[in-house]
């Protein structure tokens, strides 16, 4: 099914793990060695907080060239970093540079005080948003939407949550795979999410 601008959305479907609660989450999220085939729909590989429907997330996204991104263009057909936030009805989206194949970037969202959480991509602070609760549920997930077609393979390595003062590996088994997407877990803090490749 081609996902057109005004059509109803199917999904989303998820794979990955959660930690509840945390003051931050970060993970090295890799792209596969060959270009994923995305012919229908869109896939996100991201870390995020989740505050009762509000969130800030960063990660990489790839679309089919037909699904519209919120800016009215099409989701990029190659993996590209992004930051997105929704809080109290206020929404923001920023699209950044492409993420090369077979390459990992560290994605992080972290509470920086007074309910404000910051998105950090490859060590570079991006935008911060709030007010959210703190701590919140935090997660490192693959999400596919539109259809179950989007192929993807993302390594989630060094998946960590932040306690009051420091980062620690994800230590809870809240693992999810909606099949698709699928996940192979080495541990709670190291796994690969995939679909079709």
């Amino acid at each position: 099914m081609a996902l057109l601008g005004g059509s109803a959305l199917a999904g989303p479907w998820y794979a990955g793990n959660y930690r509840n609660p945390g003051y931050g989450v970060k993970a090295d999220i890799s792209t596969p060695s060959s270009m994923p085939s995305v012919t229908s729909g869109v896939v996100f590989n991201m870390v995020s907080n989740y505050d009762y429907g509000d969130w800030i997330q960063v990660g990489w996204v790839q679309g089919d060239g037909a699904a519209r991104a919120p800016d009215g263009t099409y989701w990029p057909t190659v993996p590209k970093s992004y930051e997105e936030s929704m809080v109290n009805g206020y929404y923001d989206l920023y699209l950044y540079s492409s993420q090369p194949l077979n390459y990992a970037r560290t994605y992080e969202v972290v509470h920086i005080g007074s309910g404000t959480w910051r998105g950090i991509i490859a060590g570079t602070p991006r935008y911060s948003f709030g007010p959210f609760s703190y701590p919140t549920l935090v997660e490192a997930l693959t999400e596919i939407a539109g259809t179950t077609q989007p192929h993807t393979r993302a390594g989630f390595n060094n998946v960590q949550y932040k306690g009051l003062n420091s980062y620690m590996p994800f230590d809870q088994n809240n693992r999810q795979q909606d099949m698709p997407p699928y996940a192979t877990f080495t541990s709670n803090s190291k796994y690969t999410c995939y679909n079709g490749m």
Partner: protein
Amino acid sequence: MVAVVLTMALGSASAENVGADAMLSRNLETQGIQGTSVSLQDGSLEVTLSSRGNGAPEDTWARTVAQREAAFLATSSDLSGAQLGITIVDEQGDVVYRCEGPIEALSRPAVKEAPADALSSAEADLAAQAENAKVVLKSLSLDADASQGLIVDCRTSVSASSGQERDAQIRWATVGLLGELRDFCEGPGRLDVDLYRLRVEDDGGNVLVSYIADPRTRSVRAWAAPGVTPVWCQGQPASLPTDAPDIP
């Protein structure tokens, strides 16, 4: 009345930076962002704005202008390493929104003219598409703003009061309509549009969604009324799955 507080943490309090706060204040005021006050505290520039009424829908425009004006200033002022922050406070004084981040220099759009009837050939087609989506295209205009450039301004209304039908209508009236507008404006004989400004209302004229897309920065700022699902975005995170299988 909703107060909008803009903060800009400066890399240094140089003379150029001190001048930047006054310039930003002046620029916001001249663009009708009312109730502006600006102060520089500990290297952080604080600008307080008041909405022009109707609460949060107006904030989308105010914060868009504030962020763009800071970016414009960065092309001529020493704002290297500076951070920009926007805080919106409701009438009780509670913070309802905060954003802070880097100021990335952006050149101010050249002064342009809005070609007469530039959108007229698209309007009938868009109205028909809107009708198919059970959305009413209430107005569509191309405005030449002296400060922000060429702006496509579009108002629509949806008929469904709730549920999936309203979600589908709002989705078309935001990302769907925006896509059609961009295809038209950026196609052959392209218009050099600087901002797309959409407003979705209910049958009673209440604003459900205020939505602004900036094609140069590939950014979107929006506001949704309470109870309105942000159906334009797909990358929504998940709540903790209560029925998730215990995967070894």
